[in-house]
C-alpha cells in the first residue's frame, strides 16, 4: 500500500525536544567546567600542561597569574576533567557570542572567577534581526572541517531538534542565504572559496564560526596548510564553540545570534 510509509512514520514516537530544555544544554559536548573553589595554582599549571591546544593557559594580568579558559580553543578531550576542580559542563552559556566572551579567567589564589570587561557583542542591527527573525536562510560552508561539525549540523534538521520550527531553512545557493555557518579552520586551499562565498551572500548578512576549528583553528591551528580561523579570512559576527558542538549548542548559538532565544514558531 502506498500509504504504509506514512503509517510507519506516524507510528514512531514524537521526539521533538521543547526549546526550553535545549537552550544552554551542552551534554555530550565534553566542554570543561571549572569549580573555582577547588582550584589551586598547582592544579591550574597541571591543567595547562595537559591541554593539547592552548584552551587552558596561564596569563599575567595586574601582577597576578590567572588561569585562562578559552572555549573557542577547547576540543573537549576531557583530560582536564580528571583533575578535581574540573568537570564536564552540562550547560554552556557562551554560544553565539563575541570572541571575548568565549574566554573566562580564574584566579586560583583567590578562588574567584575574574570578571573582565565584556564588550557588548557587535549588535548586527535591530533591523536585520527583525527581518531574519521569522525566516532565516542558512548556507553552511565547510572551510576545512573534519566533517564532525557537519554531522551535527545535519542533525539539527532531524525530528528531535527540528530547526524548521524556528523558521530556519538551509539553502543551496549563497545568493539565497542570510547567514553563513562556517565550520573548520580555513585551509590554504579553501581560502579563496571562502572569500568568494562571503561575497556572494547579499547584504544584510551574518557569519557564524562553528567549532573549535572555526573559532580558533583548534587542533590544526599550527599547521602550515591552514590559513587560520574563520575570522582571519572573513568578518565573523558570532562564535559557537565545541568539538564538535552538539546540536543543542548549535541551536542555542543560532538563536542567540538572532536574539530570539525562546520563541519557537507556532
Amino acid at each position: 500500500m502506498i500509504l504504509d510509509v506514512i503509517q510507519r512514520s506516524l507510528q514512531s514516537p514524537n521526539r521533538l525536544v521543547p526549546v526550553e530544555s535545549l537552550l544552554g544544554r551542552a551534554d555530550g559536548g565534553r566542554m570543561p567546567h571549572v569549580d573555582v573553589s577547588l582550584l589551586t595554582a598547582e592544579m591550574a599549571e597541571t591543567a595547562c600542561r595537559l591541554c593539547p591546544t592552548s584552551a587552558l593557559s596561564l596569563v599575567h594580568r595586574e601582577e597576578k597569574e590567572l588561569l585562562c579558559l578559552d572555549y573557542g580553543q577547547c576540543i573537549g578531550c576531557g583530560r582536564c576533567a580528571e583533575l578535581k576542580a574540573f568537570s564536564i559542563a552540562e550547560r554552556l552559556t557562551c554560544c553565539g557570542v563575541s570572541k571575548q566572551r568565549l574566554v573566562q579567567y580564574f584566579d586560583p589564589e583567590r578562588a574567584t572567577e575574574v570578571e573582565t570587561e565584556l564588550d557588548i557583542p557587535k549588535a548586527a542591527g535591530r533591523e536585520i534581526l527583525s527581518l531574519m527573525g521569522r525566516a532565516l536562510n542558512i548556507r553552511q560552508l565547510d572551510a576545512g572541517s573534519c566533517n564532525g561539525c557537519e554531522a551535527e549540523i545535519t542533525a539539527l534538521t532531524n525530528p528531535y531538534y527540528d530547526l524548521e520550527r524556528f523558521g530556519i531553512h538551509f539553502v543551496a545557493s549563497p545568493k539565497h542565504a542570510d547567514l553563513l555557518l562556517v565550520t573548520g579552520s580555513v585551509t590554504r586551499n579553501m581560502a579563496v572559496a571562502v572569500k568568494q562565498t562571503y561575497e556572494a551572500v547579499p547584504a544584510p548578512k551574518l557569519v557564524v564560526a562553528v567549532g573549535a576549528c572555526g573559532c580558533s583553528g583548534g587542533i590544526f591551528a599550527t599547521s602550515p596548510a591552514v590559513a587560520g580561523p574563520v575570522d582571519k579570512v572573513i568578518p565573523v559576527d558570532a562564535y559557537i564553540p565545541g568539538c564538535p558542538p552538539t546540536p543543542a549548542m548549535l541551536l542555542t548559538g543560532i538563536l542567540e545570534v538572532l536574539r530570539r532565544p525562546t520563541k519557537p514558531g507556532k
Partner: protein
Amino acid sequence: MDPMPGENATTPTVVEVARLLQGPPENRARLVSLFGSIDSSLKRTMVHYILDVPGAGYRVLEDMMNGSVPSITPVSPAAAWYERELKDQYGVELFGHPDPRSLLLHENWPGNCHPMVDSTQAVPWADEHYEFLQVEGDGVCEVAVGPVHAGIIEPGHFRFSVVGDNVLFLELRHFYTHKGTERLFQGTPVSSGQMLAESVSGDNCFAHAVAYCQAIEEAHAVTAPPLAQLVRLIGLELERMVAHIADVGALSGDIAFMLPAAYCSRIKEDLLQTSVRVIGSRFWRGIAVPGGVTRDISPSAAEMLREAVMQASGEFAKMAAIMLDRPSVQSRFEAAGVLHHSVAGDLAVVGPVARASGIDADIRRDHPYGAYRGLNFEIPSLHYGDVLARTRVRIDEVACSAQLILDALTQLQAGPIRTEVPQDVAFEGFSAIESPRGELLYWVKGEAGMLTRCHIKSPSFQNWPALPHAVVGNVIADFPLINKSFNLSYSGCDR
C-alpha cells in the same frame, strides 16, 4: 611488461612489488598503501609499500628514494594518488607516472614547497597552474561543481564534461580540506596522537582513534585488555550502524523521499543520545587511548544500549524494507552508477563499495584484530555494483553490526581497561581496521613517546578515484545519488 622505463634503474624492491601486483585478479596482491618517511639515522628518504598478498597477509616492503621513484602506477592504477601524494610531500620525481600533477597542494602552494621535508611554517602564497583534461568536440561543455557544494557537505571539486545531461568524463580535484595532518603528527606525543586521529574524519572518529591506538600498541608489542577490546568493538560497530543508517536515510533524501529520510535521522539521533548516556560522548570521542579505553560500560548502561540497539535495528530494517519495495525508489537505484568488478579490483577499492561490486573483502574477517579474533559472522556482499547494491550492503551490515553489539554486550566482565604503553623505546608498526567506509590503516614510527611519522591510509583516499568510473555514462542529475551511495569522506581523504 616493464613498468619502469627511463634511465633510472628499477630497484629489486620495486620489481618485487610490481611482480606481486600483477597476475590474474584472484592471485595478485592488493595495494594497501604507499607512502614515504624520513629515516633520521640513515638521513635518507624511504618509500614504503604495504601489500595484501593472498594467503600471506599484509606484507611491508621498503625502498630508499634517491630523489626519484620508479612509478608502479602503470602496473597498478591504484597507486596513482599515493605516488602523487609522495611527490607533493617529499618532492621526489616520479618515473613513468602517467599523471604526475600535484595532488595535495593547490595553486596557492609554491612549486618547490614540500611540507614533509621543509620545516618552514610560513609558506608564501603562490599562483601556480593546474590543467584539467578538456574533452574535444562540438558542443561539449563543462559543469564545474564545488569546492563549495550546496547542502551540508564537505568541499571538493568535480569537473564534468557533458553534452546536455550526459556525463562524458568526470575529473575529481579534492584536497580542499588538506590540513597537513600527517605533518602535524610529527612531533606529537604518542599519548596525544589519538586526538589528532579523531579529527581526521569526524564521522568515523572512533574508527580512526582505534586504528591509531592499535597501531601504537602493535608498534610497542602490547595488547589492550580484553574488556577494552570489547568496548572498542561495541564502539566501532555502533559507529558503523550510525553511519549506515544515516547513509540510507540520506540516499532516500537525495531522491526526495523525505519520510524515510526523517525516520532514519531520528533513529540515528536515538543512537547518538544513547551514546551520551552510555559513554558520555555522542561520537565516542576521547574513549580510545593507546593501551586501552578511558571508560567502561556499566551493567545498567549496557542494558540501555542493548535496548536502544535492538529497537534501532528493528525499526530501521522495517523502514528500509518499505523503502526498497517502492517501485519509484527501485527505478532510481537500480542500474544507477554501476562500478564494475574489474574496475573496483584494479583500483583496489575497499569497504561497502567493494562488497557491492563483488569483492568479498572485510578486514574484520580477513585480518582479524582485537575482539574480532575468533568471531564468526556473515559479511554481506553483492555483485551488481549499482546504487541499489551499495544500499543493500549497508542495510544488511546494520543488522550484522547490531548482532555483534548484542553479543559483545553479553560478554562484558569487570576488568582492567588500560595497559601501560612503554616509553623510551623506538617503535614502528601498523594496524588496519574495518571502518564504516572500509579498510583504515595507521602506520606509526617514533621514539621515546614521540611520533616522527604517522601515515594514514583512509578508505576514502582509496575509493575516490573509482567514483568517476561509476558516474560516466549516467545523467548528471544522478550524480549526487551515486556520490552519496559511495559516501566517501572528503576530510578523511584530504587529511
